[in-house]
């Protein structure tokens, strides 16, 4: 190490780069943090009532509409979500996410054919959500359902990512 190499000019260059890097690092904490922290947060799930038990006929599959877990005040209609709900018997319900497992488009229930069909690329599912035909890699995702005080309640969830 040759001491005489550290001239005034080298010192100023070093301190300028050092200060610039330090201030950039300081600012990057909130920048990167605000992008990454939400990704590690657990997504909230809440039970949403979708109607009285008696309003659902046994054996029928119907669309139900509910709000996502934590709608922001300005979310408007975008906070809405839907599911396909089937009353299996007196006490049991099944709720399918509307998102096709291929690329997420909303599947349509065809009651006479007892099939779910996707409008985007033609994925088809049985009435139990199993893949019947087309590109979907897995069965339709299911919401948890429960009955509380005569109300059918659905547990919200994130859009299922295949």
């Amino acid at each position, binding site marked *: 190490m040759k001491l005489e190499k550290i001239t005034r000019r080298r010192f100023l260059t070093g301190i300028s780069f050092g200060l610039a890097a330090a201030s950039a690092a300081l600012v990057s904490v909130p920048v990167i943090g605000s*992008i990454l922290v*939400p*990704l590690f947060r657990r*997504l909230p799930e809440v039970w949403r009532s979708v109607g009285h038990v008696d309003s659902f006929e046994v054996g029928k599959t119907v*669309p139900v*509409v*509910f709000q*996502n*877990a934590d*709608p*922001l*005040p*300005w*979310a*408007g*209609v*975008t*906070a*809405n*979500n*839907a599911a396909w709900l089937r009353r299996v018997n007196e006490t049991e319900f099944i709720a399918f996410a*509307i*998102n096709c497992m*291929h*690329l*997420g*488009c*909303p*599947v*349509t229930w*065809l009651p*006479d*054919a*007892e*099939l779910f*069909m*996707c*409008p*985007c*690329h*033609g994925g*088809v599912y*049985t009435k139990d959500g199993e893949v*019947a*035909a*087309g*590109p979907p*890699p897995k069965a339709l995702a299911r919401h948890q359902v429960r009955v509380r005080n005569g109300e059918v309640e659905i547990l919200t*969830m*994130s*859009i299922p*990512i*295949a």
Partner: protein
Amino acid sequence: MFLRILKTTWAWIDSRLGISAVIVPMTTHRVPPDARWWYVFGSATLAAFLLQVVTGVLLAFSYVPSSGDAYAALQYLSHDAPFGRFLRGLHYFGASAMVLMVGVHALQVFLFGAYKFPRELNWITGVLLLGLTLGMGFTGQILRWDQTAVWSVVVGAEQAGRAPLAGEWIARLILGGGNIGGMTLSRFFALHVFVLPALIMGLVGAHLPLVLRNGISEPPKPGAPVDPTAYRQDYAALLEKTGRPFWPDAAWRDVVFAAGMVVVVVLCAFLLGPPELGNPPDPSIIHADPRPDWYLLWYFAVLALLPPATENVFIVFAPLAAGVALLVLPLLFPRGERHFSRRPWAVASVLTLLIMVGALWRAGGDSDWSPDFTAQPIPQKVVASTDPLVQHGAQLFFSKACIHCHAIEGNGGRRGPDLTDVSDRLTQEQITIRILNGATNMPAFGDILKPDEMKALTAFLESRRRYVTSGQQASGPTTPEGK
């Protein structure tokens, strides 16, 4: 007197801004004389971008980047605001022009071998600009915040979700959480209005000086390969001998072409108008039929036609591989022949690309793979039978959803084979087996149809033959089995 004041004022400004000293020499730098009309697409892309900046800023005056309110603002903009519809049209067709021009520019530069030494970085910054332009197209379509936009975000997130390890995080980053909601539109607004335009401006700020520094490539001649050791001297000598000032000898063509493009954009915006807004951005409206604007329609077709087994690899790595291939192209082939007559592989790859994208475009426009949910019951004229069994079968063909994918004399979807004359091709057993067991893209109906329904349906299909159906032309176009 007045003229003298003007002159001294100009001299004062000029001495400070350095227009005569710096800008004028730049605009009059010498360029190869025979570039002509092939070289107008880059400047046209820039002109389209400037048009997008101006119309985009004006749209932002009325736009409300809030997931809950944007739709109402867009309705106002489209139907009530003075010039609103015209502005939206300009921005839409301006975007189309920019995508088109940047694509043609890239193809021209590739075919002319202009990406070779010393213009490798011109090409690389150009590839990044091409990617950013497509990114602007996608994010811009999202800002047209209707039902299609919402489902496009979902489809985009699902595609990103296929990436290994980080897939779900990227998907959540795109959605702004686990679902569509208040966060979603704001981030696409920030991307479309701040992040991507800033990147584009930065890269244009690199791309243009690179063009000045390395010069406009001279039109290629067969048998004159690029040799990095001699190229710069040869190029300087060429300019010395035959070069012309860029302004106005070459630039007038850029101006004429760009002006023509602007006129076309204005006419389209005025006569055709912007794409109509769809249903509100409410994810609980189940009947949706999302598809992208034309510049991504071919990719929509790719996603539909991929064999499911290759999907995960393809969706994630194909765009990545294509981007990397374009970026490293000039590093791999910096020297050699530039003229297309000596570069058969270059011509072949351009033709392949054009044919592939063209075919996918057509396929995307037809989108045969989408079931037709609007299909109506088969008309009596087509059923053309008084047999109650056949009649019942025709009803079942509709109610059991066969019709969403199969057409009979033009009634029905095109996802599956046309069944207008199915019994010319298949025996009754074959028909029955196919219905009971299904196929890759057809569900098995064994558990869905009762025996008497099965009998009626096969009786109906049995009656579908070329010469026995209704009086009119019976044989529709047939598609291959098990598509």
